[in-house]
């Protein structure tokens, strides 16, 4: 075990993979000698050489197009998109190529060995273009997997699993807690299962569901609610696609109440999918409507960032409203 922050855990995961897999390559803007703008890829070029860890020109569509070809050739391609706000030029390559590569070829070819890493999320005074949480766009692509860790230990295990999973994975890293989230991380090679949610705390009165940096937020809200005698069950969804509906539903069968928190704007956010599925599966078990505590339907603001964010206070209020329904 070693104490690591989330960034170090990511770095550790990459080293772990690259040491064992000769065909693993990391590339993107500034990831080479510089080690990435967040230092997630530091020392990789030094350790593994320029052939396996290199800068690419500044073109997200090029990076992902290149990554698609590389992965289909059989290499373990780990591409970085510097900010998830910039992933959109690569949208065509991801949706029309990456996600469909296996299906359209009848299984002859695939991009299963592709992983795209990208920092996402707000809370760093990043404004419109350094704060977005685009997971909902990618949740809508059959063929992609989307994975989001909440802390260093989950990050390392999930990233290693994502890289090794024989399906293209978009691994979204909550940049707000890159350094702030610190924890004990096993130093060995381990994987955590994709497609499975993690029940962080058990409770009986309401299920709180979030991912990435927002898990800490709902935990904080749960502490406040505890003082009111409300027992909250906290779930980290971990995988957005495919998502662990069973775990969430089993929790809601028990508690009868669900609250989902995400930074991304409310309308069409991933909470909508969760709410729709849970109401279908748990219709008779619901004591109150499902609450969604999300960002506003606005571009991510700078000066009003604090007010925009679905913070622990908004979550706490929503818990109370749900319990009082």
């Amino acid at each position, binding site marked *: 075990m070693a104490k690591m922050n989330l960034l170090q855990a990511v770095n550790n995961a990459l080293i772990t993979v690259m040491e064992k897999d000769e065909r693993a390559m990391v590339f993107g803007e500034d990831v080479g000698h510089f080690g990435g703008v967040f230092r997630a890829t530091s020392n990789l070029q030094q350790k593994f050489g320029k052939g396996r860890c290199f800068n690419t020109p500044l073109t997200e569509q090029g990076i992902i197009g290149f990554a698609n070809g590389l992965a289909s050739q059989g290499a373990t391609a780990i591409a970085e998109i510097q900010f998830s706000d910039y992933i959109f030029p690569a949208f065509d390559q991801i949706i029309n190529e990456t996600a469909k590569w296996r299906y359209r070829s009848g299984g002859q070819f695939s991009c299963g060995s592709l992983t795209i890493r990208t920092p996402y999320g707000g809370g760093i005074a990043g404004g419109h273009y350094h704060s977005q949480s685009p997971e909902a766009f990618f949740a809508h692509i059959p063929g992609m997997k989307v994975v989001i860790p909440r802390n260093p230990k989950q990050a390392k295990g999930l990233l290693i699993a994502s890289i090794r999973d024989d399906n293209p994975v978009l691994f979204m890293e909550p940049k707000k807690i890159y350094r702030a989230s610190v924890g004990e991380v096993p130093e060995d090679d381990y994987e955590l299962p994709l497609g499975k949610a993690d029940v962080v705390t058990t409770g009986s009165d309401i299920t709180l569901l979030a991912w990435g940096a927002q898990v800490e937020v709902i935990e904080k809200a749960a502490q406040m609610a505890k003082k009111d005698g409300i027992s909250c069950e906290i779930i980290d969804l971990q995988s957005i696609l495919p998502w662990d*509906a*069973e775990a969430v*539903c*089993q929790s809601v*069968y*028990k508690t*009868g109440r669900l609250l989902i928190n995400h930074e991304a704007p409310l309308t069409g956010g991933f909470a909508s999918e969760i709410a729709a599925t849970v109401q*279908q*599966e*748990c*219709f*008779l*078990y*619901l*004591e109150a409507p499902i609450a969604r505590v999300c960002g506003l339907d606005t571009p991510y603001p700078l000066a009003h960032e604090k007010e925009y964010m679905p913070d622990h206070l908004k979550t706490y209020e929503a818990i109370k409203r749900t319990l009082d329904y």
Partner: protein
Amino acid sequence: MIDFILPDIGEGIVECELLKWLVAEGDSVREDQPVAEVMTDKATVEIPAMHDGVVSKLYYKIGDIAKVHAPLFALEQTGGNQQKVSEHESTQISEKSVAKAALSTNLKNSQTSRIEAFVLPDIGEGIVECEIMQWHVSEGDVVQEDQVVVEVMTDKAVVEIPAKYNGKIIKLHYKKGDIAGVHTTLFDQAVEDMSDSGPTQSAEASKTRESLSTNPTQNDESLPVDAYKQGETFTPPVDLGRALASPAVRRLAREHNVLLNDVSATGAKGRVLKQDVLSAIAGNGQADKQASKSSNNASDNQAESPSSKQSASMLSDVNSHDKVESIKGIRLAMAKQMMASVSTIPHFSVSDELRLDNLMTLRTSLKPVFEAESVKLSFLPFFIKALSMAMTSFPIVNSRLNDQATELTYLHAHNIGIAVDSKIGLLVPNIKNVQSLSLFEIAKQVNAIIERAREGKLTNVDLSGGSISISNIGAIGGITASPVINKPEVAIVALGKIQTLPRFSDSGDVIAANMMMINWSGDHRVIDGATMVKFNNLWMDYLSHPEKMLVHLR
């Protein structure tokens, strides 16, 4: 010419029985027209023709066993649809339709586990509630099918309730001593590997037949596989203690301050329906549930144990204030039963004395024979058998009168009841069909019944359907009695104690005679005094001269 090959229907079926030919050789058939009915292990299936044509040969007779992969019938193709169909193809097509038909009979909608709520059934004859005497399991125990889960005490008996399925006990809905209403859930059990309620074999087979006959082959919609289950992707756990209800129903319950957990759920998926909530709202104003029917077989009113206990506790009450004891269970039932009997049946009595000496001699001589079979022989078997023989001559004693006294039903079976002191009080179980039983068999049953009564294991069956009752109160004491008829029977006899009394013999000497007083109560609507006396005379004649029983013994 094309042979129709009986296809491999699957699941190891290698042959089927030719039930019916729907056509004859030489008949013209159209494509899809049913040609034969065959019966497999699973179902009766219709075989349709694959082409237009004329039936040229039927390869089997009715009742023959047709082999799979062998020709069933031959067809000369005619008409525009003439296509050279390979044997493989024809097998494929017919396989498809027959397989589809067979599929519908094999339908298994299995779920790996679900909650099974054990609802206290109507135990019988108007019982509406019972007391939880003893749980034999705890929450979390895994029980086997038939394993006793709980003992409940009804109006009549202590009844053991066994588990219907294998599975883990998830929740016990009552504590020991609680009164559980009939039709409420006693306990929840997680049941494994149960098939969802699919149609029975015969229903499926007829459905298949129907669909095949109207629209065979590809057009048949007999595939009832409906995997579209909204909201049933996952299996909820059982130990929730939470009521299921739709939001609309929850609103209703809340508006009326009804706790959903307290409402009986009658809806699909175990949910509380709007109607259930409305019933609960209405029921909240009602008094305790009352017994609707009155056909309880309570004993006659000679139960001293409760009363003696009662007086004892009163005596020992140092503080000398009134003590209130609630009457429930058997005592309540008995009270009600007595009321019903006395208030609706005009009782009259007939008494006589019975000389037992001959019977005693007979019994003494027969005792070793019975003991050799480990059966204790008391007087009761004789009394019982003799009663049955007498009833044969006086069938009116084995009858039922309806409440309006407009209809009398003569019962066939002689189910003779004996009052026994059971674990929970005096009950009157009966021995069935005494008319067909030997003395030996009756003796065995008497012993068994007494044993069961002692252990509190008398069943509902034991306690119902009686023809006539015997109360051997004399075994304890007393000479005469006025027994209360065990409604809906029409007569009851109380036996006094055996006394050795001086009587005159035929020759005028005074002898010591073993005498027993016999006390009949009869339903005067049905039995008149003369009939009662004649009946009793016959019965006593059998008992005082038991050898006379041999004359009419069956």
